[in-house]
């Protein structure tokens, strides 16, 4: 029996008004299924709608039309608060520019998603300690992001993304600011996480990085190329 996909988008569109009855479409008639355990790379030129699609999947954007199912939940029917809850339960984010909070230590940066998800103090302590250990960054726990290299920052960023055990990681150009050797390490890390069961969708310009995934989607002018 075939299981339902983790993500299912049907006729999803995103547009911005230009004037009376005029719209600029960023995403056009997107129909997409992502199975649990997939490692999908979204590619396309600038302005193709890659990041818009990622933020739509991450429920940061509410202005789209169509149907979006995440783990059998009809996202398009959820209220904003319910979407936030679903996002907190299911999704972790990795950004091109890491987006670590500058004024928090590595430990605190890992702790903060858990505190937003109302984990107890003891659970948070255990999970952060586990994650620090798993990513081999225990020695860095009291350092601030500015004291880390780019690769180390992205490492912390990925650790932060997976700490609350999401089913899905959305990564926006995760190696865009990294040296190629650091990029390779990060992509291997993604591959390992994927092999452990985490579904990953990354936006990338790099064919090399895309090769780490098991599927590639090409976007052009808001359309998915078949």
């Amino acid at each position, binding site marked *: 029996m075939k299981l339902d996909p983790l993500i299912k988008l049907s006729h999803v569109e995103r547009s911005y008004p230009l004037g009376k009855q005029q719209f600029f479409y960023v995403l056009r008639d997107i129909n997409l299924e992502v199975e649990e355990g997939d490692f999908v790379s979204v590619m396309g030129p600038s302005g193709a709608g890659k990041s818009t699609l990622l933020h739509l999947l991450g429920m*940061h*954007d509410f202005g789209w039309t169509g149907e979006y199912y995440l783990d059998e939940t009809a996202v398009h029917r959820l209220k904003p608060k319910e979407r936030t809850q679903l996002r907190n339960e299911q999704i972790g984010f990795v950004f091109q*520019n890491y*987006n670590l909070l500058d*004024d*928090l230590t590595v430990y605190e940066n890992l702790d903060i*998603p858990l505190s*937003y*998800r109302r984990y107890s103090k003891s659970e948070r302590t255990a999970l952060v300690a586990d994650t620090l250990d798993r990513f081999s960054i225990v020695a860095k726990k009291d350092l601030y992001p500015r004291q880390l290299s780019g690769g180390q920052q992205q490492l912390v960023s990925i650790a932060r993304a997976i700490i609350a055990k999401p089913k899905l990681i959305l990564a926006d150009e995760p190696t865009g600011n990294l040296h190629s050797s650091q990029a390779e390490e990060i992509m291997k890390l993604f591959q390992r996480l994927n092999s452990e069961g985490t579904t990953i969708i990354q936006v990338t310009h790099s064919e090399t990085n895309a090769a780490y995934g098991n599927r590639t989607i090409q976007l052009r002018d808001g359309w998915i190329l078949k």
Partner: protein
Amino acid sequence: MLSDLRYAFRQLYKNPGFAAVVILTLALGIDACTAIFSVVDGVLLRPLDYPQPERIIAIRETNVPKFPEFSVSPPNYLDWDKQTKSWQYLAAYTGAQINLTGQGEPQRLIGVKVTAHYFDVYGIQPVLGRRFVPEEDVDGKNHVVVLSYPFWQRVFGGNKKVIGRAIQLNGEPYTVLGVTPPQFGQASKVDTWMPMGFKADELTTDARGGHYLSVIGRLRPDATLAQARAELEVLAAQLARHYPDSNKGWGITMARILDYSVRDVRAILYTLLAAVGCVLLIACANIANLLLARATARHREISIRTALGASRLRLVRQLLTESILLALAGGAAGVVLARWGLDLLLVLAPSTLPRTNDIQLNSGVLIFALCLSVLTGVIFGIAPALLGAHTDVQEGLKQGARGSTDARGRLRGALVIAEVAFALVLLGGAGLLARSFMRLTTVDPGFVPEHATVLRLALPEKKYEKPKQQVAFTDALLARLRVLPGVKAAGLTHSLPLTSDWVLGFKIAGRPEIPPSDLPSTNYYSVTPEYFRAMGIRLIRGRLFNEHDDAHAPRVAIINETLARQFFPNEDPLGKRILVTDGPDVWRQIVGIVADIKQYGLGQATTSQTYEPYAQYPFRSLNVVLRTNGSDAALTGVLRPAVYAVDKDQPVGTIQPLEEILGATLAKQRFAMVLLLVFSGVALLIAAVGIYGVMAYSVVQRTSEFGIRMALGAQRGDVLRLVLSSAGKLVAAGLLIGLVTTFVTSRVMGSMLFQTNAHDPVTFSLTTLLLAAVALAACLLPARRATRVNPIEALRTE
């Protein structure tokens, strides 16, 4: 919550400049609020330090419209005491001139004569000895005295053996019965209390017209103020029927003792509290603007937090935690500053401000400061927090994103409008008070206060019992004073304007008989011939008194212009005869008319006034006035020896420049005006900084727009106009709202203004123009910066 707090601390530490500006601004605002609140709390709010103070009531007589509030006559008081049931205790008191001898240099004391239950009304127990008993409140048996604590310490070094000892007061022995608690009576700096012991002539029917007592009462536990008032009003009406000559038209007025004692300063203090509240709100608006700018800079951080799962509520909580932490730091600094602020306030405060001993930074005030700080943090933090927490994550996560500024821009504009409006309300209020004060200081008091010194004496009753003795003393004293170097004239009056008053009814010879209760009244002064020269009171017509107007000469009087105009409108008063109802029933011929003087202060209506020669009707209470050639300070040292040369046992009271006495009557208005001017000046400065900040920020935000405009051919003048017009709209809106608010709120200041309309168009116009000019100046710098934008640079930045 702890992590929010930790992060908030870290934010402050990371941005010390921002934190310092906010904390300093708040500290100044909270300092002013806390200091003024300390005064309001100590004077108006805190219960008096007596058992059940709300049951202590001040009672006065009233004869509207002539005397809205007046002293009580002894027979009326005794009838109240005997014939009412609402009072647990009722007591009367009046000031007494007391001279202390036999304890080193003679001293003039501040004494109070009280009826037996005076201390019972207050419910206080002496710290030493006992209170009076009714048997001691009898003429001839009342040579006992209760000492104030400071007096006991000062004169007797706190010696407990003073109880039972006799001390010489007014030349007679008085047995010391007790010592009051340290603070009791110190608002009026009382030294001694002695039993009233009404004399027989004070209790006759005729004496009902002699009003000189103050009355206080303690309500029975089961009686209400309304019941007590109703009961006394009924009694007053009965007395008016029984004694129409003296009591017709007289009623009663009463108020809780606290309300009564603060009635003159309540409006001023609440106005000042509202003013500092305005200053704090303006400061809040400025800080909110700073936070908004900062929220824009923190757009990325907020977006990351949202992406990581922070709810809006959680973000608002975190941002508010930071605001409240800032406010608490500002509050703590404000409380520290308030210690000095309060000292400064008390220096500026008029000497008539009651309960100054109760003004302190106590726990109640600190709780107020704490609550105010938290409230302030919420006020300036809530809007930036709500807007800051509402973020477009997708936009915010882009490199260099600044976030949407539409809503923040609107809020910034609204805050500027609010600042301008509040500042105008304050400026308008201060302007009205300043204009009123200027008018007040230009009022002619009717005498020349400069280069005149007043020396107060009270002749003891026993030693100077006879008028002849009193006149002999004053003649000898004035003769000595007159020849002192620098003295141009020396005269005296028994009642000095601005400090005491004698109000008596009078009759005019040849006019139809008038019932005593309907007699017109006049301020009355017993003066020596040189008094008019010493005071600088101008003779209008006729003559002044001279040395021939003595006890053996025909009785004469001098009246003022107001009395002449009101009662002799179509005839010449000179040569007419009048009879003033106090003292011997003697008709006096009017020999002169002098200029009006302001008996009750520059802002008060001029009353009719009558003078009689001191030699014909002397008193033991003396106010010697010395006109000098300007050497008042040098004079002070030689006045006491001059008095002692006449009578070595005669204590000298205060020696004070007349100018200072007049100045003290303006102290309340000056206090309010100075503080409001200071507060409005601060408000103006903060508002100007706020306008500057918003315009400067707006110019930075619009740099590329200006660049494009200039690239398209806009001249510098065009850009300048563009910036100034956008600022002008905000300022104009603020001025409009401020004007309407000032128009509505200034009515409450009506009672504080002298010959100044609470809606004075000149004041409103000037303050509006001033604020507009300051706002324009604040906008000019950013506007000029906008005109210097390099189009190429600006477009490259974009």
